């Protein structure tokens, strides 16, 4: 059986649910907005995990879930808790449910797309970059500093320099410009990440279950995700084929980080060099699928269903 968790109207989850319904898959939806009607317990005894998930009074044995696709939002921000004081019993109950769910997913033998621990490499982009270089990808020349003079020298050396957050907190990638000069003194309070701008074509590569979907993004914006803002031209997306060698490197990188599903941000320079900016462990693939028709959600469902089939017939796993 497959468990999908999140808000069903959220685009990636909506697409996965639609594909599961298309194939009449045996799945359970845990609607996060109804999590106050859910209960969960598990216990570990001698390394064996057992427990139960209750959704609106219906009980499911946790051992029956062979695969899980969680796309959970921060439970503190659920609309159902709006207006609740920080210390309200309802909030505490909701937090305890989500904590129990996350803890079970971390240790469950089920195929979880993805677990929190491997996703955490993305909590530090320069840390993740050091892991990425082991797979033959280039990473942009990067300076993290709280010294404005070093930033000036770095900009003089590379001419075009961008800055962005170090952590997983989302920031809009911006180019450092002359008008930022005055603000540079502020970095003395906290080291900031600067990178040499890399010319080329952006490529998003989704990897899932041994399948690879590459999408080229055409945009003049520094951060193509926000290209349509402020009157700019929206980014143009198209499916592209990549070499077997590059696809293999993307798959190996995904596996090495312990991820089942990844969105890898690459840039191909005019002279063919491949730069990797980051590996997104919770890719919002619906944007790419919606713009190109690439069947990424179907591949996610194949991976979920494949794990479920292996649970029912372990010989299937041996024949793979």
């Amino acid at each position: 059986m497959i468990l999908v968790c999140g808000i069903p109207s959220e685009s990636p989850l909506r697409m996965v649910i639609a594909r599961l319904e298309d194939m009449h898959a045996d799945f359970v939806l845990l609607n996060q907005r109804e999590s106050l009607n859910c209960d969960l317990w598990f216990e570990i005894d001698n390394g064996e995990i057992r427990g139960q998930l209750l959704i609106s009074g219906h009980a499911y044995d946790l051992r029956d879930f062979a695969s899980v696709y969680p796309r959970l939002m921060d439970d503190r921000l659920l609309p159902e808790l709006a207006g609740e004081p920080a210390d309200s019993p309802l909030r505490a109950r909701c937090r305890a449910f989500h904590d129990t769910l996350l803890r079970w997913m971390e240790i469950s033998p089920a195929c979880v797309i993805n677990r929190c621990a491997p996703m955490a490499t993305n909590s530090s982009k320069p840390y993740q970059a050091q892991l990425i270089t082991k797979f033959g990808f280039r990473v942009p020349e990067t300076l993290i500093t709280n010294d404005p003079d070093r930033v000036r020298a770095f900009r003089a050396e590379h001419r075009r320099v961008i800055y962005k957050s170090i952590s997983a907190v989302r920031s809009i990638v911006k180019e450092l410009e002359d008008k930022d000069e005055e603000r540079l003194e502020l970095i003395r309070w906290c080291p900031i990440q600067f990178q040499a701008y890399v010319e080329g074509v952006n490529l998003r590569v989704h990897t899932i279950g041994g399948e690879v979907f590459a999408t080229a993004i055409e945009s003049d914006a520094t951060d193509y995700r926000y290209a349509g803002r402020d009157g700019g031209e929206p980014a143009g997306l198209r499916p592209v084929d990549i070499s077997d060698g590059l696809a293999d490197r993307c798959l190996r990188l995904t596996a090495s980080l312990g991820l089942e599903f990844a969105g890898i941000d690459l840039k191909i320079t005019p002279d063919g060099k491949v730069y990797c900016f980051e590996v997104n462990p919770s890719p919002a693939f619906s944007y790419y699928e919606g713009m190109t028709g690439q069947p990424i959600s179907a591949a996610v469902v194949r991976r979920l269903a494949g794990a479920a089939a292996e649970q029912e017939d372990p010989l299937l796993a041996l024949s793979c």
Partner: protein
Amino acid sequence: MWLVISSSSDPSGIWSWQGLRQMGLAPLEFITAESLASGCQWEHRLGSEGTSLKFSLPDGRVISSSAVRGVLNRLSAPSPLAFDRAVASDRDYAQAEMFAFYLSWLHSLPGTVINRPVPSGLSGPWLHPSEWMMRASRAGLRTSVYRQSSYDGAAATRPGIYLPADPRMMNNVIAFEGEVFGGMVPDSIAQACIRLLEESNTTMLGISLCTDDHGRWTFAGATPTPDLRCGGIPLLRHLAHSLVSGGHS
């Protein structure tokens, strides 16, 4: 150059720095979390050709990664001094940025690093009790039953981390590079502790074990920053040897 990095209030950090210095490890710098967070000037570079780190401490010392041969790393988190000047609305962001930065520069240090940082902890894996229980069980240690539910209140104690009523029944050992230091444990338990260390993919792990009236040993918890003093001089000697020879990190 070798580094001991710890909070200024960490007795193990101070003890091991003094002990390693007396053993002749030189030059050996003691760097506190507080000095890193107060007026330190940073330069951390990454690129396709490698990484580098250089920082200047408020007392004038300059540390360059090219001169570092080994590190005893006991930083559990950046000192709050690093972000407590941020306005309230930015404090969580500043804290996340600082943790991300520390994770990267600590990871980039060359030579032996005991322990290397991982995303769950700057000095090695900081895991939830449920994950330690699974790993301990896989390593062959006896574990009590762990149970968690959505009925647990925020302040509920976590069963599963077994604490005996009599503290004399608690034993703390340190698994480090294939050996166990500290308390006297049966060989089978020592081997299981080493397997837990390997399972945890780190260099050093403090492991707490309880004994009961029947002489059974039960896993009670683990930490990547144990009290090194319980390992005494034998541990310190092994630490010094590992830092000088390159160890396994």
